């Protein structure tokens, strides 16, 4: 299959499909459809439809996959089919659990495939790190790294959400298919080598997320969140699309690398170049929530069901930044003189505004929403460094942020279940006494978000500062430091409430949250925060080696 890439002549009508390269997307998408079908089939027909589906997939795969790899593929498919059938038979009366298990398995499989692809790519194996599928996608370092993070975040999200959704009676059948679909969009976005693919990826992930954030139908906040996200998301997509159109108009191509080279050509009309870049920039700035395009973030984060918020914060940010990196750092390196100053200013303003606005928040979800804005600013520094160091630093930062935000929003899901309401800082008083392990983990996540050494947050910020100083952007490093000090204040405020305030009587009566799937998810995140904070070399290596773009 390694010959595939070389066999791609220009003007081929039907490109060969690099099945191996896009198998993570296929896995996620297929699992999404499967879970959806199983959910709609009804209790009795569930097993039958599972059999039919597996058989169909097997035939399709046999037809599509050429000779030598076929036995392996068949074996895998049979194995997956058996597992699938066993699961369906076992859980056919509990569709939500079935959906959750299948979703976790799909994410786990994605991680497995991505690991194999990473190995293969490192050894020059069948997954080429260049453009595939008629130059539409590229399975390069950035794409692979994003797959790891998104799939990992997906698993933890399922763990966080199960009981929470059950409690709020919003555990609807479409939740898991939507989660898998949005993950498909994210991984697709992160491997897009073409601007149209970028747009498709963003749309796939956003459409699913719009629905997910509004899944609490009777909750006005959730409805508001979904509606705002939809409107502003559509708005930003329009900007992005317009930018893509102008770039196409100027260069006659939507392939990122080619378009970037064309744009840099002095013969290209300057007006189109500037306008195209500016509009795309606005589109991306909306997606990653850079000030002043951040307005939707706090409202959407606050209103959406907390596990959805966790996934949004962790995974969407990674995917959107991956595409941002791909188009700007990867594709338009030569035009850095146009966009680097603009993004630098946006990043600086974002860091300060995000931190300052978070200080005055009382609702924790909203506070974390503003903190997410500030963190987008930090991550953007690696982007404007326009270097491998910078890209590696941004990727590592996004991984770190994913872990920290999953952890902290995860704690909130547990607390919301306990108190049956949105959590304000005052609701945390005395938690250190009541539930010491939970409070200690929350404190850990907050300290990590603040960037205190010993946690992954410090290592990640250190990497960003290193990239900034290396690129001569010392002033951005200084802004980051200032923003971190402001931010430390509000993270500390929460810790003060948990450990230094007396517990009010109405909280003392509530039961202590027992161990649950959610606490497992949070513990995994906590272990990652410490492990990556104390012994990060292996993952830094991964992130730095992932800082490659398909040519």
């Amino acid at each position, binding site marked *: 299959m390694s010959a595939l890439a070389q066999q791609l002549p220009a003007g081929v009508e039907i490109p060969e499909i690099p099945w191996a390269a896009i198998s993570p997307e296929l896995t996620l998408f297929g699992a999404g459809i499967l879970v959806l079908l199983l959910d709609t089939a009804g209790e009795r027909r569930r097993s039958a439809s599972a059999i039919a589906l597996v058989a169909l997939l097997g035939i399709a795969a046999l037809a599509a996959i050429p000779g030598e790899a076929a036995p392996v593929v068949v074996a895998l498919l049979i194995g997956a089919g058996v597992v699938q059938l066993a699961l369906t038979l076992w859980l056919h009366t509990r569709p939500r659990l079935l959906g959750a298990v299948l979703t976790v398995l799909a994410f786990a499989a994605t991680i497995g495939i991505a690991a194999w692809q990473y190995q293969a790519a490192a050894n020059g194996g069948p997954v080429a790190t260049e453009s595939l599928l008629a130059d539409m996608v590229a399975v390069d370092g950035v794409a692979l790294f994003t797959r790891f993070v998104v799939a990992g975040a997906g698993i933890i999200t399922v763990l966080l959400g199960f009981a929470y959704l059950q409690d709020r009676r919003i555990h609807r059948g479409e939740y898991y298919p939507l989660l898998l679909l949005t993950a498909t969009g994210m991984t697709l976005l992160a491997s897009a080598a073409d601007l149209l693919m970028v747009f498709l990826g963003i749309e796939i992930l956003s459409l699913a997320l719009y629905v997910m954030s509004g899944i609490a139908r009777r909750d006005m906040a959730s409805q508001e969140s979904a509606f705002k996200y939809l409107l502003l998301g559509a708005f930003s997509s329009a900007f992005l699309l317009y930018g893509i159109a102008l770039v196409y108009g100027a260069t006659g191509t939507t392939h990122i690398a080619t378009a970037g080279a064309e744009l840099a050509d002095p013969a290209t009309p300057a007006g189109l170049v500037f306008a195209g870049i500016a509009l795309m920039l606005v589109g991306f700035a909306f997606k990653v929530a850079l000030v002043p395009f951040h307005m939707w973030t706090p409202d959407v984060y606050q209103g959406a069901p907390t596990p959805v918020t966790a996934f949004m914060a962790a995974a969407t940010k990674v995917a959107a930044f991956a595409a941002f990196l791909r188009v700007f750092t990867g594709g338009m390196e030569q035009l850095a003189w146009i966009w680097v100053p603009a993004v630098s200013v946006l990043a600086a303003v974002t860091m300060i505004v995000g931190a300052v606005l978070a200080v005055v928040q009382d609702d924790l979800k909203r506070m974390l929403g503003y903190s997410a804005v500030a963190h987008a600013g930090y991550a953007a520094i690696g982007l404007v460094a326009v270097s491998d160091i910078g890209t590696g630093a941004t990727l590592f930062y996004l991984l770190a942020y994913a872990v920290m935000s999953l952890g902290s929003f995860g704690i909130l899901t547990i607390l919301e279940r306990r108190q049956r309401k949105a959590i304000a800082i005052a609701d945390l008083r005395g938690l*250190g*006494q009541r539930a*010491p392990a939970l409070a200690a983990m929350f404190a850990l996540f907050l*300290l990590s978000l603040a960037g*205190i*050494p*010993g946690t992954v947050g*410090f*290592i990640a910020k*250190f*990497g960003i*500062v*290193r990239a900034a*100083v*290396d690129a001569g952007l*010392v002033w951005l*490093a*200084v802004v980051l*430091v200032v923003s*971190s*000090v402001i931010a*430390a*204040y509000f993270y*500390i405020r929460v810790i*003060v409430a948990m*450990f*230094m305030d007396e517990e009010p009587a109405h909280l003392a009566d509530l039961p202590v949250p027992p161990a649950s799937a959610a606490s497992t998810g949070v513990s995994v995140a906590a272990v990652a925060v410490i492990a990556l904070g104390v012994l*990060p*070399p292996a993952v*830094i*290596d991964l992130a*730095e080696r992932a800082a490659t773009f398909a040519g």
Partner: protein
Amino acid sequence: MADVPLLTLLLAVPAAVALLIAVMPREAVRPIRSVAMAGSLVTLGVAVAVLAAFEVGQPGFQLEEEVAWIPQWGISYRLGVDGISLLLVALTAFFMPLVVLAAWHQHERAKGFFVALMAMGAAMLGVFLALDLILFYVLFEAMLVPMYALIGIWGGKQRRYAAIKFFLYTLVGGLLMLVAILYLYWSAGAQSFDYDVLRGLELTGTEQLWLFLAFFAAFGIKVPIFPFHTWLPDAHTEAPTVGSVILAAVLLKIGGYGFLRFSLPYFPEATISLAPWMLGLGVIGVLYGALVAMMQRDIKRLIAYSSVSHLGFVVLGAFALNQTGAAGSVVQMVNHGLSTGALFLLVGFLYDRTHERAIAEYSGIMRVTPVFGGLFLITAMSSLALPGLNGFTGEFPILLGTFAAVPLAGIAATLGVILAAIYLLWAYQRMFHGPVEGRAVGLTDLTPREIGVVAPIVVLMVAIGLYPGPLYDRVNPTVEVLVEEVVAVAEGADVATVDQTGDPAAGSDAPIELDAPAGSDLDSADDDDEDEEVSR
């Protein structure tokens, strides 16, 4: 012996104990404190082994260990001790069992308390041992969290305010230092954070000035130096007894240590041109701290301000830029740790009984509790640098060194010694003498446990006061090399700034004059002690 990674062990023992306590059930207060005690005794044992393994007379780092940590970024795990850090490491380890014993009856949230205490111990020891700047920074900041918890959770009424103030002050200073460290890293071009690699950098005068100021932000706040000291009285007053002891005995030393370890050798030109300013701030600290201490109504606050005054001496010694002063400043750090640590412990014992810190509430304590009064008197005498006790052995060389560098500063600082006698003895007189009144009525004397906490400190006070030679034998070689390095730059640089340092010739002559063969300077200080002793 050589194969045992002693220094790593020194860090690992308290860290492991902290982890162990963290997984113990929180109701098990007795096992928890026993484990804490055992852990700190083992730590002390390792520290004694380090003292024994340390080769006296050698200026460089010893017992070094190095492992790559984040090789991609040039960060390594490198530990080592030299004359500057050895005594501070020993001091830290010495205090660990004592604070555990002092907190023996800590029942309120005991588990968290001992976890914080042990974590603090590991981080503090690490700060003195780290020879990689990022490792140093990580441990420097890692101290923040447990100390913040100690003040904020187990502190007094204003604890939250004090804790947040402490946290933010230290964080800001630390981050500025981090930026400076990163700058060093890039200008080094070596892509390394190793202490020695960065020490050999060629920096321009302007660079040195800015970097010096950035490091000053971290260490000046820690010491604390005069305008940055405002967090200290709050933190000290609100912290629980053990927290105050750790702050006074060890934490504040990190500032003075940082000056000697980083500021002087890394930025010699900036050091020389800023030395007059630093001496000025040191003198202000000495006098201001003493004057404000005199005015305090709260005994704990009085001791806190006396710290500001005594640590002013450390700054003076470090920036007198001669060996006598610098060595004195290391020893002064140890002495201040012992005497102020003991004072806080004693005041803590008093507070445990009466829950009152106002000086005016006490009178005639001496008659009721003679043991307590006696120990307090000895400690106060040590703190005010009575010859024959340890305080004198540090302050006297500092005053000599300062006088040699800038006579006026030396004279002004001597006033501070007199003021110390006034505020301490005045407070002593008001509280311990006179008719038994106020809270002193019905006061019980120290329990054997409490005597056991203070007694080892008092023994050391007397021992160091009578025979400080061994301390100086260890400090001198390292400090000598350090000062020579800085002074060489001063002589090499034909800058006009040299004139401003007052009399640089005197500065560089001083060590020669006082230090004929190595170590004899000590003997001379020693002799002085004995003379005084006789004349009394």
